[in-house]
């Protein structure tokens, strides 16, 4: 840990990272060679040596019994995503408090999950994996793939938000030199989807939601039948084209 406190503070601008306890990068693979498709998602520790990537790729191909051609493709994909992540490192991400809503709408095998909740980007103690584990336990989800999928979905969103922030700060800096009038607009845009903290946590409001809102924020877990899964997959297929 670089700072003595795990919490980001208003005074210290936060350098780019995934705003969780472990700075782990979500990696998503979607490779198709000769009609064979490999889709996978996992998290990678960016401080691991890059030599690991090839080892991992070989291992994966062997385990999944894929053609050897996949090795280079997988390694390349991982390498690209890691490099992209590293390109942001060292840049200021944001200053001040930032709580963003996270929306989950994922399907893992037969399980469909819809959920939304708030995530504090300054909380570097947060643990998406732990959250996902608790979620699965509470909701009685038995499919072992669901937990990691939730965690990765959260990380991907956080990653995306972090990238957005970095770029918006960079832009605002550029703008600072020139047109000052733009600043305010940009700042509000940069904060984008972040919630209005004073409205939610101010002295006047209660952090306990109104009873009628409970259902809105309640996570939805659906177990789909085979037909539904097939239909959804077909739909997704169409959308991607």
């Amino acid at each position, binding site marked *: 840990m670089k700072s003595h406190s795990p919490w980001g503070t208003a005074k210290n601008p936060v350098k780019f990272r995934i705003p969780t306890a472990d700075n782990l990068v979500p990696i998503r693979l979607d490779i198709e060679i000769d009609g064979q498709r490999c889709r996978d998602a996992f998290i990678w520790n960016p401080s691991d040596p890059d030599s690991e990537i090839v080892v991992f790729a070989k291992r994966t191909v062997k385990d999944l019994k894929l053609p050897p051609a996949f090795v280079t493709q997988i390694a390349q994909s991982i390498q690209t995503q890691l490099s992209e992540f590293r390109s942001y490192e060292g840049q200021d991400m944001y200053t001040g408090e930032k709580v963003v809503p996270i929306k989950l709408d994922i399907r893992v095998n037969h399980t469909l999950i819809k959920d939304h909740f708030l995530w*504090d980007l300054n*909380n570097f103690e947060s643990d998406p994996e732990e959250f996902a584990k608790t979620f699965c336990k*509470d909701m009685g989800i038995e499919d072992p793939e669901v937990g990691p999928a939730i965690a990765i979905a959260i990380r991907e969103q956080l990653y995306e938000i972090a990238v957005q922030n970095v770029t918006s700060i960079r832009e605002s800096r550029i703008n600072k030199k020139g047109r000052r009038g733009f600043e305010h607009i940009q700042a509000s845009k940069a904060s984008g989807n972040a919630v209005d903290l004073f409205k939610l946590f101010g002295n006047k409001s209660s952090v306990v939601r109104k009873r009628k809102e409970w259902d809105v924020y309640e996570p939805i877990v659906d177990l789909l039948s085979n037909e539904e899964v097939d239909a959804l997959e077909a739909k997704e297929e169409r959308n991607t084209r």
Partner: protein
Amino acid sequence: MDRSSQDLELYTIPSYSSWFSWNNIHEVERFSLREFFDGSSVTRSPRIYKEYRDFIISKYREDPSRKLTFTEVRKSLVGDISVLLKVFTFLEKWGLINFNVADNSEKNSYEGSARTASFGVEEEEDNWRGRVKVEEGAPYGVRVVAAPNSMKPIIAPPPPPSVAVDGGGFVGEVGESGFKWPPLASYSDVYGELMQQEKKKALVCGSCKENCDSAHYQYTKEGSFVLCEKCFKSGNYDKNKLADDFKYKDSANQAAAWTDAETLLLLESVLKHGDDWDLVAKNVQTKSKLECIAKLIELPFGDLMLGAGNRKSRYLDVIGDITNSRQSGLASNESQESVKAEDPGPEVKDKEQSRELTDTDQSPELKDNDNSAEHKDEDLSPELKDEDQQKGDAKNEGPPLKRLRTGPTSDVGNSLMKQVARISTMLGPHVTASAADAAVTALCYENQCSREIFDDDDNYVDSKASPETSDQRRVAEVDNSVEEEEPNQSEIQGISCVKSIIPQNLRTRAATATALGAAAANAKLLADQEEREIGQLVATMIEAQLTKLQRKLKYFDDLEQIMGKEHAQLEELEESLIAERINVLQRIFSAGITKPKEQTSTMHQTDVVQ
């Protein structure tokens, strides 16, 4: 906060979370959830923490038997999901939520039941649970355990949950110090006084002041006046009482006099009228109400037929019967190895007595049920003299009268103690002694107090051996009579005397345990005795069979002899016949008419040949 004060009484939290308070935030919380208290963010303030906390705990307490999940909570709370999870985990870790709630339903129900029993006891309950269950069954004292930890200080055990007992007056009477009867207190404990009162009124001859054992004469105009057979025959009674007014009562005859027809009639009327003994008795006609009850109870299924309504009097009879039969069994056991039926004396007589007594005294007695001891003392006072007399007599006589000694000594003061004393005297002293010993040991272990507390009482009793009140004197008499046999027993009695030293609770438990132990031992004795009787009977039977066989053999021998004689006679006859024939033949020869006869015979022969 109103809610907090109410809720605190209702929910169980572990003792280590006793810092929790609805109104304040404790140091533990400040330390564990520092982010809320360092002012680092507007999203995390003590106020918000408190809101989170209060909401989660309240949510849990809506239904404490169910496990509250984080996912359930977070939909209702605004805030960083990770912080919420942290608060939730914190509360769960400290047992403020989901305490004692298990995932699987099996454990759930178990915890649920434990919880219902332990509501209201916030702390320490945790420590007790698992080790000590809520006392519903046997009292602490009755348990087989290892030797006591004599070094431990006395801890008065928490009073067991009170149990509603019919006739609450007795409960109050015995438990002066607010102690209620433990669940195992039997009816005989509670109503023991009634029974003893009845027994106390053993029939005493109005003239010679001696006990009327089997048969006596009752003065019909004044039920309580009885004469023994001897006195009656010698005309040894008041001149103004006429001989005709005395009714002869032979208890042995009467008790045995239930014919099959009467029994049938009784059963029918019981089925028809149930508990209404007046009607039943009217139906049976030849028997009185009490006789009917006694008979019905004697029948093997009598208990089943009776409803709960008349339990009280029924129970008295049952107990009376049991004890009586025990005593008579014991008596016959000691005096001679005989079949019980051959010695119906004390048993039958007792029944007779109780019958009469209840006839005359039943209504006041029953009314007195829930009255204080004083009232009974009044009732009893005229009889005290007689009792003493009896006691003197009884001591000189043999085992069959042992009951008479123990019966009167029982007192209204502390029925349980009396029960124990009575049971003790019925048994061999060593049995009771060991029972008491075991009880005290178990009790000491149970309460983690030292044995000395009981042992010390011996001295105390001795020093207090001549108390002033008549009640205590009689108690002491019991002591002495018991101690004569075995000094160890004074432990129990000591308990009864020294009310102020040992908690009532302990005493009662010791007594109960002793009584139970003694009763068990007694049961064993009885069983042994029965076994012996059975063996004896079988032996008698075999013997009889043998005799039968021998007799048969003897008859056969006789028969053989007779046959032999006849045989000899027949032979004799045959010989004489032959001799006669020879004689005749000789005569014929001498007469000279042999030829024709020979001819005819040869002719006959030739015919046959041809």
